[in-house]
């Protein structure tokens, strides 16, 4: 049984079918790419999977403890809680909060110490705060952000903001991580660093990653499988090699050389 199973997913905006009859599967510990021309519906698909939009039609099922649970109609926060984390195409950090707070917030849902303990400042509260902080800093360290814990998120350079978004998503302890154009606005060198990083976290955290990206150096390098969308439809699916040579994909997306 696959981890996430999407069947005939459709989303209409007025007359426009931004996503139509899309089916896909994600297994455990996979690194999968999602590409397609601008406006193909990639971000919309993410939004459907994470409950930001309600699908017009179709099903999304997540395997939890050997049972299939439907995600359709569930609230975003529930879906996050069930193990789906994400980043945003247009960075959506908590801009006026510190780097550390950004990460701590993401840990909230999994925090065990209750509000009552916090109101009375019990020792358990202090202890849990310490562990949370330690955990957050550990995560930040992986992304070389541990020196910036008390900076405001908005004061970070663009590339670091992108990385912080990934840290924040990881802090929700996802089973599946959706990354929407993580390398946008980075130069080739930075992209190369990011590529390595993505590969590493996928291994270290044993998670599944679904990645939208227009930078082929990244996609073709790290993805085991790739899905291709065009005009809301899935037009191809395969290994990077297959995709590179797929006529339809070349015509619609890669451009012929």
């Amino acid at each position, binding site marked *: 049984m696959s981890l996430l199973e999407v069947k005939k997913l459709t989303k209409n905006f007025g007359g426009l079918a931004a996503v139509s009859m899309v089916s896909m599967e994600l297994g455990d510990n996979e690194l999968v790419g999602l590409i397609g021309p601008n406006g193909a519906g990639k971000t919309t698909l993410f939004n459907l999977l*994470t409950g*930001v939009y309600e699908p017009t039609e179709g099903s999304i099922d997540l395997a939890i403890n050997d049972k299939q649970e439907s995600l359709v109609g569930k*609230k*975003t*926060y529930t879906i*996050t*809680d069930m193990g789906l*984390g*994400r980043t*945003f195409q247009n960075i*959506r*950090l*908590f*801009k*006026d*909060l510190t780097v550390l*707070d950004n990460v*701590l*917030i*993401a*840990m*909230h*849902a*999994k*925090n065990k*110490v209750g*509000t009552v303990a*916090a*109101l*009375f*400042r019990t020792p358990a*509260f*202090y202890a*849990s705060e310490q562990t*949370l902080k330690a955990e957050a800093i550990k995560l930040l360290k992986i992304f070389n952000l541990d020196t910036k814990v*008390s*900076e*405001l998120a*908005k*004061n970070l350079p663009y590339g670091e903001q992108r990385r912080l978004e990934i840290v*924040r*998503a990881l*802090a*929700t302890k996802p089973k599946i991580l959706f990354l929407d154009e993580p390398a946008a606005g980075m130069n080739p060198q930075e992209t190369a660093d990011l590529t390595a990083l993505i590969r590493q976290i996928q291994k270290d955290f044993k998670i599944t990653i679904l990645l939208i990206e227009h930078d082929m150096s990244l996609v073709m390098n790290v993805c085991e499988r790739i899905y291709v969308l065009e005009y809301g439809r899935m037009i191809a699916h395969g290994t990077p090699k297959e995709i590179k040579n797929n006529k339809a994909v070349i015509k619609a997306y890669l451009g012929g050389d």
Partner: protein
Amino acid sequence: MKQFNKTNLGWLIFIAVAFLLIQFGVSFGLIDAFYEITLMTILINIILAAGLNLIIGFSGQFSLGHAGFMAIGAYCTGIMTIKLPTLVGLFAGLLLGIIVASLVALVVGIPTLRLKGDYLAIATLGVAEIIRIAILNMGSLTNGAAGLSGIPYLTTWQLAFIFVVVTLVIIVNYIKSSAGRATVAIREDEIAAESMGINTTKFKTIAFVIGAATAAVGGGLHASYFSVIRPADFTFMKSIDILIIVVFGGLGSVTGSVVAAIVLGIINVFLQPFGQLRMILYSVALIAIMIFKPSGLFGTKEFTISGLLNRKKKASPKQKEEPK
């Protein structure tokens, strides 16, 4: 761990010193009957503003309905203490006010807190007006437009001071908890917060309910100290008055609200002798303050004891102006 205890101790000393200073002032006649009224107004305003700041400044929900919850607290306390003019009656009244205000906040909060920005502002304003009109029409229980008078004088400034401290401790501890961080995340970006697994409706509602409960406490103390309450005391303008304190102190700064309540209380004393000019001077001051300090006295920063203790530690990064 050590640092935390040091800060807590620091605050404890700070509070004790403040209390003793006031006590000293009262005992030696420096704070006479008139200044005591000013002091009470300030203390009550601190409670009201801190609660509203939790709603507006921390959870980012624009409520214009604080006066409604204050009215609930005032009438519950007023009615209760008229029937039972003892401290027990006072506490029962305050408790009743907290319960009723929280219930009302819960019932109206869940559907309306989905609304955004000014739509929410109007809805909360409507709620407060409905509360007020309901009170106006409750016949002999609330005595209509004339309101309740002769409410027994059971509050002392010491009692109010204790309530201020308790309210502030609860609010600050809540904000500093994991739930508080979730609340702030909602203010910053609701969609992102939701994607972090935060049940936004829940935390908005909690903030709204806590805010309403503190408003009820403020209202109850008001009733019991000033002994006269009328529906006309709890109009939209009252909500605005509290909002001004919150914004003046800084949205998202509890200590800012405290300082703002004190400063505005003092400004009011100075303006009193100016007759019709006082409101003109007040509004000019208000405009000038906002122009020169649009993020309020404290911005989102807090005055902290640990900040005092570790003066040498580098100042927090300079805040840039928020985009509109």
